[in-house]
């Protein structure tokens, strides 16, 4: 895998002529595993009850909540049917109780995870998610939160390199 073709390197604007090349190459295993995790979170072979389109929409929404314009555009390239609505931060799921619970949970855990309680897991179950889907959703939110911060950090490194 070319580390400069990974989502995080591209989003941070890093290219193979970067002065950070040596430092990044020492951690190429981490960048590859980050890319693999991106695929497992966004485009899993077994998506369960969370479609690829919903995942892309949620990841895009999370990027917006983090003022992360470049990853917002990246996730838009993964959009499928319905992603656009989910990614719209003015949309709360409307009449779809399942989607409404997913969006509410995603917004909460993205922006203010410390406020999450057992009641929030109960709310997801009440909206029809089984425990495997709750873990899938949690991993998606958690991974994208990680990725957004890696990109923010790499960008700062590029600024001072």
């Amino acid at each position, binding site marked *: 895998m070319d580390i400069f073709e990974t989502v995080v390197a591209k989003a941070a604007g890093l290219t193979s002529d970067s002065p950070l090349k040596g430092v990044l190459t020492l951690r190429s295993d981490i960048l590859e595993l980050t890319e693999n995790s991106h695929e497992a979170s966004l485009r*899993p072979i077994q998506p369960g009850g969370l479609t690829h389109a919903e995942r892309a929409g949620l990841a895009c929404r999370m990027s917006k*909540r*983090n003022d992360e314009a470049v990853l917002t555009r990246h996730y838009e390239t993964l959009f499928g049917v319905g992603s656009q609505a989910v990614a719209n931060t003015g949309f709360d799921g409307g009449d779809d109780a399942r989607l409404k619970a997913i969006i509410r949970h995603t917004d909460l855990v993205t922006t203010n*995870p410390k406020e999450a309680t057992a009641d929030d*897991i109960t709310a997801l179950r009440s909206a029809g998610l089984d425990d495997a889907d709750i873990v899938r959703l949690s991993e998606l939110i*958690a991974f994208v939160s990680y990725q957004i*911060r890696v990109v923010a950090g790499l960008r700062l490194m590029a600024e001072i390199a």
Partner: protein
Amino acid sequence: MSEPIKDFTTVVPHWQPRVIPVELANATDEQLEAMKVTVSNTKIGEYTLVLALDPETLQQRTPLFNGIMYGRGGLSRAETELGAVAASVVNRCIYCAAVHANRYNELTKTENVIGSIFGSIENAGGNEDENADVDTELDARTAALMDFATKLSQCPSEATKADAERLIENGLSMGEVLDLILSASLFGWANRLMHVLGDPLPQD
């Protein structure tokens, strides 16, 4: 059932899942494969059994976690743990904060740094967004490192070029800066699993 622990501690709590973990006897081949990476065969923790509900992400996550936390070279083990602690304080993940504060203390054979970090939260009335006093008792390098990791853990990130420059001014190499970013970011991930999917309870 005991009440969940609310205050930061270096005594590692019991983690009680809020969802039903995979039962080892009923695990699919894919789940077993994903869990195998983490264990030395004897006992698989409840946390891993919960994450095995989504084996595709667990399969990648375990080597990534180990690579960032225990990879060779770069930032010292102790300072890598500090990145984890900073994120866990921001996200108020009592369990992760305890595990990694504890490891930091073991590695450095000191308690004053973690004592200062946890103490400054109490002084701020439990509001970790305002832990501005965190620097007062820390050496300049540790303070710069904590500040950077704390700011990177906010939503959106509040870390600036000046914060990154301060790391370099305090002796971090570029490779060490990268490792700090990875550690703090990784706990933006881990906290959102541990704190959201389970409760920290007193042991026994």
